[in-house]
């Protein structure tokens, strides 16, 4: 068990960016993001036994991570964590100093207004998946994936423009 756990954590380390990005797309504050990040790792670990290695570890991760995010419920919090909010603002100020990162920040801000399926479509697109692969992951046809993705891209473009950013 320990060897399996170490092997799993090692693989996870190599692809941790995937979980980080999914959590960032689906949750708009640091606390919820941390919860979802942790939840994805747990679900990956629970499902790891059934990973046969027929597909790449990263492809398998996309599927489990997105399936977790699609059904994830935010925790109900009684009052906001002030300390956490201050931390968030600090992070944002730092990142906005660099242009590339600020472009991504605009993207992450706009993406929060998409629904769960639209987020999954954009995520898989940005990860370089074809319409066929997106359809396969989400369980929809290739045509449906293409139509949905195009609509979502238009919507996202509008949302980013509304923030005053040229897109």
């Amino acid at each position, binding site marked *: 068990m320990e060897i399996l756990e170490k092997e799993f954590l090692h693989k996870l380390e190599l692809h941790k960016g995937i979980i980080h990005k999914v959590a960032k797309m689906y949750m708009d504050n640091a606390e919820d993001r941390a919860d979802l990040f942790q939840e994805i*790792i747990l679900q990956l670990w629970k499902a790891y036994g059934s990973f046969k290695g027929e597909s790449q570890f990263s492809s398998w991760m996309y599927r489990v991570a997105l*399936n977790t995010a699609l059904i994830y419920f935010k925790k109900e919090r009684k009052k906001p964590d002030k300390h956490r909010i201050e931390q968030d603002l600090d992070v944002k100020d730092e990142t906005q100093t660099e242009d590339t990162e600020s472009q991504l920040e605009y993207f992450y801000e706009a993406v929060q207004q998409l629904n769960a*399926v639209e987020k999954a479509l954009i995520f898989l697109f940005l990860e370089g998946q074809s319409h066929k692969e997106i359809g396969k992951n989400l369980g929809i046809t290739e045509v449906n994936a293409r139509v949905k993705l195009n609509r979502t891209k238009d919507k996202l473009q509008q949302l980013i423009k509304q923030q005053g950013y040229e*897109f």
Partner: protein
Amino acid sequence: MNFDDLQQQWKDEPSDNVQIPSEIDVLKKAITPIDFVRSSMKRDFLIQTFLRILILFVPVFFDFTDSLKTIFYTLYFTILFFVIYYYYKFYTFYKNSYNLNYNSRKNLSWFYYELKLNIELLKACSFIDLLLTGILGVTIGWFIRTEKQHNTHNILNLLDGVNPLFINIGLAIFAFLMFLHAEKLPNISYGKYLKNIKTVLDELDEL
């Protein structure tokens, strides 16, 4: 910025500061709706099993006569038969752990329809439970009344002197609360998860 730029920036986004835990045990318990439903079903099962075992000893505690014991245990085991059927179905649902390796639609559909079915089964089971418990209550009451002269330690002696109207109102309120429990509680407990998953399924279906 365009989508090609965005894709490149996405790819280049650093993940060096992302921390992966050194062991799985340090993580908190999983909390997806599926896990939540499974754990609350398990909790309900344990509570109900405990209560049903406790009810098994009611005739001993209250010193039921032999004929009353026969009626009590006949109805008790009839109820138990239906309840065991429900628990068997629930156990199948519980053991058939969801598979996040499936594609999203298959995973969500499986859970949605299984949960819906289990909610309906839970309601049906609660109604059967309610009906048979009602019959059991009336039968016990009737027997106690008729055999009262022979047994001075009867629990129904407690109700002597109470206006029958209040007893009937009390019983009606109890029956209504039990009805709400059977009909509404499963929806309150699990309905929001069902709704959430249905929304995502509908979003997948839209073209």
